[in-house]
């Protein structure tokens, strides 16, 4: 796909939740590469495994969930400047190495904004603590960095806001404060999990613009998760579409929106009202509903809802994610015969 080594390379990642009632295969063989400076978008409907994939990368999957197999390869520089690729899946989740990476090299804007800050400490104190944890600076210097971050993300009266609690901030300001905290240690990879679902359109536009600017200035990579196809189209340069723990399709944003290959991507794009279509006509829908994770269909996970499914094939075998053409990757038997070994 690209000559340089990816910053993050996830290979056939599986993360399951071992519940009393059965196993939830939340992430069931996911593969993708993220390059420096890229905004990598992940779309998919609720429960398809977007957040769990990212929790696995950060090694913060809560029990009874665990990484069952696969690799999470992170390219990084060692203390003496050598380039190194390490497999995060092999590290102990609580090891020093992992703690050094989490927050400093890979930062997260979590899906629940209230989870980002503790209500009993001021936002400023929490950012200062995060900086002290990862950087060799004094408390006073950390405060200066925090203040600069608040200025960078456009928080008015930053000095005063640092001394407030997260619940005193409006939705838009809280989201900016979370971004400031995530960026305070200058991560090379920022994972933004639905960073704008809780805010208004105008605030959303501000947050998206801010993230785009930061990505340009710092040349950081951003993994951007959302179920809003409009936001993905505006933000991402590369897009991955997920369904029931698997990757259906991935490719450059223009190909995904203008030449989608997978029937699920096609159906998803048809089902949203757009500002250019004739109003008040019936929207094409996807028949049926997303199956319960305990009742995953055999074969291609999408086949019971797929208009083009091939009987005897799609309902028995699982298509592999394979390249078609120069840029796109699709897991669908309409395009190739590759299947996942049972």
């Amino acid at each position, binding site marked *: 796909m690209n000559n340089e080594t990816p910053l993050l390379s996830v290979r056939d990642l599986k993360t399951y939740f071992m519940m009393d009632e059965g196993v939830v295969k939340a992430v069931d063989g996911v593969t993708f590469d993220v390059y420096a400076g890229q905004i990598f978008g992940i779309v998919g409907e609720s429960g398809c495994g977007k957040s769990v994939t990212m929790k696995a990368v950060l090694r913060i999957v809560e029990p009874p969930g665990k990484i069952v197999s696969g690799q999470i390869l992170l390219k990084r520089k060692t203390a003496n400047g050598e380039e190194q690729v390490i497999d995060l899946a092999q590290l102990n989740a609580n090891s020093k190495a992992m703690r050094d990476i989490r927050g400093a090299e890979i930062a997260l804007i979590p899906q629940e904004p209230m989870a980002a800050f503790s209500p009993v400490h001021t936002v400023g104190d929490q950012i200062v603590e995060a900086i002290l944890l990862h950087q060799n600076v004094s408390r006073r210097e950390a405060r200066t960095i925090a203040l600069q971050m608040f200025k960078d993300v456009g928080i008015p009266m930053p000095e005063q806001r640092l001394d407030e609690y997260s619940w005193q901030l409006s939705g838009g*300001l809280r989201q900016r404060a979370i971004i400031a905290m995530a960026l305070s240690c200058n991560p090379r990879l920022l994972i933004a999990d639905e960073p704008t679902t809780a805010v208004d*359109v*105008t605030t959303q*536009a501000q947050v998206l613009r801010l993230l785009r600017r930061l990505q340009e200035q710092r040349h950081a990579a951003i993994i951007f998760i959302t179920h809003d196809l409009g936001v993905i189209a505006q933000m991402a340069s590369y897009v991955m579409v997920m369904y029931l723990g698997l990757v259906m399709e991935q490719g450059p944003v223009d190909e995904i*929106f203008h030449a989608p290959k997978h029937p699920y991507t096609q159906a998803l*794009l048809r089902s949203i009202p*757009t500002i250019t279509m004739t*109003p008040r006509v019936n929207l094409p829908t996807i028949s049926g509903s997303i199956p319960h994770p305990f009742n995953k269909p055999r074969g291609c996970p999408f086949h019971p809802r797929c208009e083009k499914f091939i009987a005897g094939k799609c309902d028995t075998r699982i298509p592999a994610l394979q390249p078609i053409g120069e840029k796109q990757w699709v897991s669908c038997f309409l395009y190739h015969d590759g299947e996942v070994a049972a």
Partner: protein
Amino acid sequence: MGQLFLVPRWGGGRVTNHQTSQPSNYSTIKLLEVKNLKKYFPIRKGFFRKTVGNVRAVDDVSFFINEGETLGLVGESGCGKTTASRCILRAHAPTAGELLFRTKEGSLVDLAKLTRAQLRPLRSQMQMIFQDPYGSLNPRMTLFDIVGEPMYVNGVKDRKERVERVAELLRLVGLRPEYMQRYPHAFSGGQRQRIGIARALSVNPRLVVADEPVSALDVSVQAQILNLMLDLQKRLNLTYLFVAHNLSVVRHICDRVAVMYVGKLVEMANTLELYAAPKHPYTAALMSAVPVADPRIKTGNVELKGEVPSPANPPSGCYFHPRCEFAVEVCRKDAPVFREITPNHFVACHRADELRLPGIA
């Protein structure tokens, strides 16, 4: 009692061509006219809970909804959409203003002035669909009880008749009648929203207030519910007040749209006109912020700076002036009047006549 369920109760006015339908296929008989509606919430402080001020959640709002049409109500969080909706349904007692409603019998009543007892016979004509398909259904009630309760309250006491009508309603919203004895937890988000719609329709309402009915749903489910709402409207001649923040969805569903900002209406017009040629700088800013699902169309070019002011302490003059790039002296001093600038296009901006603002599509 034979039900005229699928037959519109009111024949005139609306001729609907489903595939190509475009605005104004509704009647021009006003089903509801809201005049100078105000809802203030007192801010209380201290031991004696003395009132120290007011949250002007809805502040002198006037609009109308024609029979059979869908009016969209949009605006940022906290601008008063839900409060206005709840006043119309008299879940809140308005602080001031008139709510003129044309009853089934054709008489005009002011809902704002009715007592609870006087309202009761009218309740069935106005129903609500809620945002949260999870929180709005009682988990200990079966579908039969959830959907059948409002009609029981409205006098359908015969169980067999209720069973028949609940079955018919479930079919109407695309659920199987066999599900009647199940509990809500056994259903997906989209199915639960259908249950909420069936419940709202169970008493043959004429006005349906839908407060963010698809916001909590996944995109594929959202399309199903939007189709259902359009279909039911056509079949039952329903009138919708559709509260939402997704402007692409609003454009798809609504004949006309009203835009709210800090408790006031700033603009109201036919949907396509509003989107293509907004007259209020706030509407234009909202339009420009819509993320279009096409990477070749770049949006978000006009950045709206600053934050929405608090309705407890709004700015002077035009409430939008601190964020408005077109603000002039008069904007800081005088509140602009909400006026009809061209037929059916209402706007509250001092500069609406001279400004040429970009829209979308």
